[in-house]
């Protein structure tokens, strides 16, 4: 059986999913982390279930594309039971979606997650009363600690195929709305009998136009279900929304999309809208959602009691961390301390591990004969392994752990608030801080996270800036080259320069392509103690990509480079790239490394060591060359994986434009650095 986890962003769906499905889905403490659904088979008791973790969405008529993905999935009807995960501490707001789901008459189980948080807020929730009022099973859970997870899925398994004891309960809207709904449902059923499927492709086109670009999974117009499913009475087990539910969906949807409907249906929708508008004195969708909101608050009043919470230390912390002056100082301090710690820890590891590999390679040289083909390959592969273990991991692991902690604590969302005004200078708003900040970890999830932004323009700008920001792979290059050979403050200087470039690039983009987006609107989650399990698992989830994809590439790439060197082919490749390397004042031997750097950014570092034939780069390159090489690698092209995700999110043209701009930018910056070094130092 197929169970779909649905709920508002940051309600803990992914935590619930991971609790039974192993760690496949990324959770964090801000809204919009899951932007694509994840599917896994899990075993609960004796039953095998197919589990779908859908991106969080606030409403069935969503305002951003990440949420559209979930709705599309829901409307395909390819599931048996919905598990609606709620943040119990946000019960009032979360119930809005639950009530919307009730209007679909779908088999439903409500999981009240984060009950500990609710208790801390002083909330007492009457579960039986809520179950009674909604007419569905309600299970309480603290998914982060694994409590209530199995119970939730058991309830979901039980609910399938059983006819509910009471008729499904749903909101009774004000008379004018119910009347209009009835009329529209009749019109839909007539339309359905005529089998108007012909309108579909046209709708998809129009939808694409409206949204700017096709979404990876292909858009499904709001009305797809209306056209595809022949009208059936709302029987138990009907997966697709009943006619009344469909009518509600149509009335609440964006009026601008009415043009995509079958003309007869569009006419009926317009008539129903007008009827409501005249009688309620406000737009139809506002009348419906206000009525639901009222029902929701009413339900909340009935089932929950909020006692005065004890003096909350979080408020005190926020007063300090979000202070208009100290907040920014602390922000700078936190990130400075964070990067300093990563650098120190990384350096500690790098020195020891590198020395061990050096002596191992020297020993092997004696055994195999330093001029043999075998040694060339083994040495290459070992240097690759050394690079992964000595150079990348010592920096990457502390960085990812630190980022996960900041995220899980809830600080990243605060950064969004603090940075909103500054981000406006970049033509973005505070929400875009999240993808841009994620860019410091890995560009791939950062590019994917741009999907939380509503306009295509914002997604492009945010993705461009997120890619411009040095990811953890480039951080290892910066730390291990500039940091290790020139000093920590040089590494910090590169970060500062990068920030400046990001600011300038954002500013220029904002001028070239002015902002039209409505601005930041974001839930700020309460602080919570980071769960070591979540932090470690999240670190692993991000690290796994490096270990399973990049490490084999590193080792194989290094071995190939060893071969190329053994046969003396590198000269030809380097000759092709020599105009570029000469322009930048770099030894021509590094030409090849830049090509490998596009595979994975860390490769350029390892390949550099391989190309210059030693792990002590300083003995063959000057400080200026090390700096220029680092700068060039920091800015030039994003790695293949990033390029691939950019193509998915932005399309080929924009990706090509971004890549070209980045390459040009890297050359300009490296040349400037060369000039500065030449004339000043």
């Amino acid at each position, binding site marked *: 059986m197929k169970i779909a986890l649905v709920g508002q962003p940051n309600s803990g769906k992914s935590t619930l999913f991971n609790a039974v499905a192993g760690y496949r889905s990324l959770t964090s403490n801000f809204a919009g982390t899951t932007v694509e659904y994840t599917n896994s088979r899990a075993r609960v008791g004796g039953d095998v279930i197919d589990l779908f973790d859908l991106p969080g969405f606030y409403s069935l008529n969503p305002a951003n594309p990440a949420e559209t993905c979930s709705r599309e999935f829901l409307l395909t009807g390819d599931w048996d039971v919905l598990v609606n995960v709620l943040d119990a501490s946000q019960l009032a707001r979360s119930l809005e979606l639950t009530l919307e789901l009730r209007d679909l008459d779908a088999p439903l189980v409500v999981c009240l997650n984060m009950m500990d948080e609710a208790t801390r807020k002083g909330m007492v929730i009457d579960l039986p009363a809520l179950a009674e009022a909604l007419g569905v099973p309600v299970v309480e859970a603290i998914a982060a600690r694994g409590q209530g997870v199995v119970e939730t899925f058991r309830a979901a398994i039980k609910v399938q195929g059983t006819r509910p004891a009471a008729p499904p309960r749903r909101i009774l809207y004000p008379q004018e709305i119910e009347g209009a709904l009835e009329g529209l449902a009749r019109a839909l059923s007539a339309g359905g009998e005529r089998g108007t499927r012909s309108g579909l492709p046209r709708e998809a086109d129009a939808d694409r136009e409206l949204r700017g670009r096709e979404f990876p999974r292909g858009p499904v117009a709001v009305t797809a279900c209306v056209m595809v499913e022949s009208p059936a009475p709302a029987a138990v087990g009907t997966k697709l929304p009943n006619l009344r539910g469909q009518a509600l969906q149509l009335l609440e949807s964006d009026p601008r999309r009415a043009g995509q409907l079958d003309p007869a249906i569009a006419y009926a929708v317009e008539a129903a809208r007008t009827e409501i508008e005249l009688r309620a004195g406000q737009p139809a969708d506002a009348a419906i959602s206000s009525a639901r909101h009222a029902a929701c608050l009413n339900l*909340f009043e009935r089932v929950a009691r909020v006692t005065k919470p004890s003096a909350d230390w979080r408020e005190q912390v926020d007063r300090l961390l979000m202070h208009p002056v100290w907040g920014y100082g602390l922000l700078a301090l936190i990130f400075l301390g964070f990067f300093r710690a990563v650098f120190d820890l990384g350096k500690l590891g790098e020195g020891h591990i590198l020395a061990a590999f050096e002596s191992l390679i020297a020993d092997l040289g004696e055994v195999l004969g330093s001029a043999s083909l075998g040694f060339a390959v083994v040495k290459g592969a070992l240097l690759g392994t050394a690079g992964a273990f000595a150079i990348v991991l010592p920096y990457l692991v502390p960085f990812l752990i630190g980022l996960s902690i900041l995220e899980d604590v809830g600080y990243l969302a605060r950064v969004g608030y603090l940075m909103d005004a500054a981000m406006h200078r970049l033509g973005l708003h505070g929400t875009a801080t999240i993808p841009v900040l994620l860019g410091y970890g890995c560009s791939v999830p950062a590019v994917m996270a741009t999907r939380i932004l509503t306009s295509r323009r914002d997604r492009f700008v945010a993705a461009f800036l997120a890619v411009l920001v040095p990811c953890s792979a480039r951080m290892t290059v910066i730390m291990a080259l500039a940091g290790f050979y020139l000093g920590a403050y040089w590494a910090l200087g590169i970060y500062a320069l990068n920030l400046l470039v990001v600011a300038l690039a954002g500013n220029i983009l904002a001028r070239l392509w002015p902002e039209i987006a409505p601005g930041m609107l974001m839930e700020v989650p309460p602080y919570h103690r980071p769960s070591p399990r979540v932090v470690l698992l999240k670190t692993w989830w991000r690290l796994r990509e490096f270990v399973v994809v990049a490490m084999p590439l590193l080792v194989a790439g290094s071995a190939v480079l060893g071969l190329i060197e053994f046969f003396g082919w590198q000269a030809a490749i380097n000759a092709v790239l020599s105009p570029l390397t000469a322009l930048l004042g770099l030894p021509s031997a590094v030409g090849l490394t830049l090509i490998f750097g596009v595979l994975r950014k860390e490769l350029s570092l390892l390949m550099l060591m391989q190309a210059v034939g030693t792990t002590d780069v300083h003995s063959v390159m000057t400080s200026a060359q090390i700096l220029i090489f680092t700068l060039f690698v920091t800015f030039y092209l994003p790695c293949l994986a990033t390029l691939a995700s950019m193509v998915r999110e932005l399309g080929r043209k924009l990706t090509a434009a971004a890549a070209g701009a980045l390459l040009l930018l890297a050359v300009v910056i490296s040349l400037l650095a060369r000039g500065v070094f030449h004339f000043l130092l």
Partner: protein
Amino acid sequence: MEPAGELDAPMTLYQARNHSYLKVLAISDDWMTRRSINQMGLYAGDRLHVLRKAPFGGPLMVKSHNTQVAISRQLAEKIRVELVP
């Protein structure tokens, strides 16, 4: 939804003072804007508390129904509010 009188001159959320307690009178007529504000649990008729305002024309942080929401200046200007005692 019209302003009640001269004493209750309508103001936008952005104009509201820090730490004030407010009631939402109306939210922009634009579907997308209204929708996205609604999604944060803010509807006409709801009460909210301005927790803090960021400097340099930055966002506001408001609390409503026990949820903290950060709202940018542009959106806050599309929400009409009145002071509640």
